[in-house]
């Protein structure tokens, strides 16, 4: 093992260091200086992102080409780029960089949306921000992990941090969200582990790209591999929240503090999709596409249908966004359908489209959750649809951004969500899965109904009659420059990404 390769994991180290600093800083600073804690956490994420980009640029200049999208696509010619480092436990490829980038972005934005919490709240403590950073570190490791052991440990780092974060508000709903997330998360992890055990038993290998290479001594155990992969898929579909394993999402997303919900809906989902992507593109690959892609397609169609249909009935905006998140998991799954005769270039294109979707989805979802977190009255959170009535008159800027996020989530041009959906539908059609893509377009059109309800509530519905003694309607939103920064930043990015969808790929050259 070449230890100098550890420098490739420097971004993770930066985030971990920031987590330790923020936990210890909480012990030594005065109570009135606690606003510094989120700033330190934010600095950790930004420095991590900087270090990630620096790593990427130095790799590109050293090898005079950008890293491959995944390690299976790497040329094995002499002097070419070999993304497998540190004894094959990690793979420094573009997919890993992209997932780590999305994780850092989600972490930074959820720190911004939590920074306005009250002083005495558990949400303002150093442990809260430390756990956000630890969860982000787990997600980044998960993006780079290339054997089952590293993958499992990273997954658990992320999950355990998120269990506690989900319960960090001091009310019953939050505790209940943590309990549900914990029990169902641990249950699904057990299935995932059993799947890994079967695969190990059949092959004796733990590396993600090696396990399906038939080993000569155990040729008769293909059945065991299939059983193992089935269990593994159950666990992973559970983690990404795909139907029929989606039922935990609405309660957990509704009960958790809004900043944490944003992190779970974007960062955790991106990291879980990193596992799915590695399995679909590297482990199964085109060779096993006949066995598995139809299963992904069925799960995708079911997830889109269930998520969109149930979102129609929700009156609580946070819960509606949770169901919308399930629906978006379905669209994302479409991007992971591998054609049996795909080549490396096509797979890389598909992966790029899926990553674009993850990025666009992260921006618009975190922005929407930021607005939901701000709408409150006398410190009480207001999440119901009717509470958004008249927001356009009181806070035109916030309402405009929220409307943009809703249009983008619905997939209307010229926002980022339109191109994201267009790209995954295109990859599904290119891979030969026309029917799931058509169903995706149809459900996407139907989804406009519930996204537009929010816009109608903000712009058309009359403000509720103010009862005597109630706070004036104008005081409905707390002012918080950090959350405003998050919302306007995400809004701007949603438009820019929609107008210049090839913007991020500019970095790849």
């Amino acid at each position, binding site marked *: *093992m070449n230890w100098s390769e550890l420098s490739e994991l420097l971004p993770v180290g930066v985030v*971990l260091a920031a*987590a330790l600093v923020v*936990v210890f800083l909480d012990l030594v600073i005065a109570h009135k200086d606690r606003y510094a804690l989120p700033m330190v956490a934010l600095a950790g994420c930004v420095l991590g992102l900087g270090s990630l980009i620096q790593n990427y640029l130095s790799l590109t200049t050293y090898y005079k080409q950008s890293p491959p999208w995944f390690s299976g696509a790497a040329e094995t010619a002499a002097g070419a780029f070999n993304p497998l480092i*540190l*004894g094959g*436990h*990690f793979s420094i490829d573009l997919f890993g960089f992209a997932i780590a980038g999305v994780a850092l972005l989600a972490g930074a934005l959820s720190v911004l949306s939590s920074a306005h919490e009250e002083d*005495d709240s*558990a949400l303002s*403590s150093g*442990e*809260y921000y*430390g*756990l956000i950073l*630890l*969860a982000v*570190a*787990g997600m980044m*490791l998960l993006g780079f992990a290339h*054997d089952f*052991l*590293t993958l499992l*440990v*990273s997954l*658990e*780092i992320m999950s*355990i*941090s998120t*269990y*506690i974060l989900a*319960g*960090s508000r*001091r009310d019953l709903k939050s505790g209940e969200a943590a309990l549900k997330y914990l029990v169902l998360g641990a249950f699904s992890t057990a299935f995932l582990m059993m799947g890994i055990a*079967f695969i190990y*038993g059949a092959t004796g290998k733990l590396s993600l790209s090696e396990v399906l290479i038939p080993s000569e*001594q*155990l040729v*008769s*155990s293909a*059945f*065991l591999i299939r*059983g193992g992969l089935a269990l593994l898929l159950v666990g992973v579909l559970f983690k990404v929240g795909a139907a029929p394993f989606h039922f935990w999402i609405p309660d957990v997303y509704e009960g958790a503090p809004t900043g944490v919900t944003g992190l779970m809906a974007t960062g955790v989902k991106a990291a879980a999709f990193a596992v799915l992507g590695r399995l679909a593109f590297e482990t199964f690959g085109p060779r096993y596409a006949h066995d598995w892609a139809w299963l992904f397609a069925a799960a995708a169609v079911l997830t889109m249908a269930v998520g969109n249909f149930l979102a129609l009935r929700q009156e609580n905006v946070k819960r509606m966004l949770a169901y919308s998140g399930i629906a978006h998991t379905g669209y994302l799954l479409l991007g992971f359908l591998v054609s049996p005769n795909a080549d490396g270039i096509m797979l890389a294109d598909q992966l790029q489209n899926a990553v674009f979707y993850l990025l666009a989805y992260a921006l618009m979802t975190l922005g929407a959750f930021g607005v939901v977190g701000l709408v409150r009255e006398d410190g009480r959170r207001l999440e119901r649809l009717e509470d958004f009535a008249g927001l356009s008159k009181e806070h035109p800027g916030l309402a405009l951004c929220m409307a943009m996020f809703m249009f983008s989530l619905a997939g209307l041009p010229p926002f980022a969500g339109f191109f994201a959906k267009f790209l995954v539908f295109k990859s599904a059609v290119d891979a030969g899965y026309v029917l799931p893509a058509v169903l995706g377009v149809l459900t996407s059109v139907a989804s406009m109904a519930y996204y537009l309800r929010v816009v109608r509530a903000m712009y058309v519905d009359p403000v509720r009659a103010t009862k005597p003694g109630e706070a004036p309607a104008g005081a409905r939103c707390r002012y918080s420059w950090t959350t405003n920064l998050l919302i306007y930043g995400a809004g701007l990015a949603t438009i820019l990404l929609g107008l210049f969808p090839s913007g991020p790929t500019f970095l790849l050259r």
Partner: protein
Amino acid sequence: MVRAMHSMLATLLFWIVVLMTVTAATFVVVARNILHAAFALAVAFLGVAGIYIFLHADFLAAVQLIVYVGGIIVLVMFAIMFSAHTQEGTVEPRRTWLALGGGALVAGVVLAATIMLINRLQVPLAEANAHADAAYRTTASAAPGEIALGHVLLGEYLLPFEVASILILAALVGAVAIVRKETR
């Protein structure tokens, strides 16, 4: 002759441990009194440690004893004592037979699937097993010893092992977060 007796005794002992483990695990799931269930859990963990010894994984057996029987059981007992002020708190409230039946159905499906999987596996495992018994009868030193395990753990798998320490860190910070939430 003596060797055959020895092997037979070992097999007998093995099946006693298996039976004990399965019985204890079943009791964990059906017992009405939660404290009894926790004690049964300790027996099940002990049984699994015994199986590890049969599989020549001595180090793992020791770790299983220390961490599970020594640590996790105490933690579980503590949680039970804490969450049960009254006597009826330790007895589970009305259990529906529907849930029990549904759970049993799922368990049956899982078990049947495992059996089918194992049968498909017979060929390689049978070969492997012939050697396992050979190794078992000759010398115990043929098994991967703690030294080999240590070399691999601190060599090839050092990095994942170190990553696991981040997990412990997360659990530690999380425990502090939960406690602080209570006191403040």
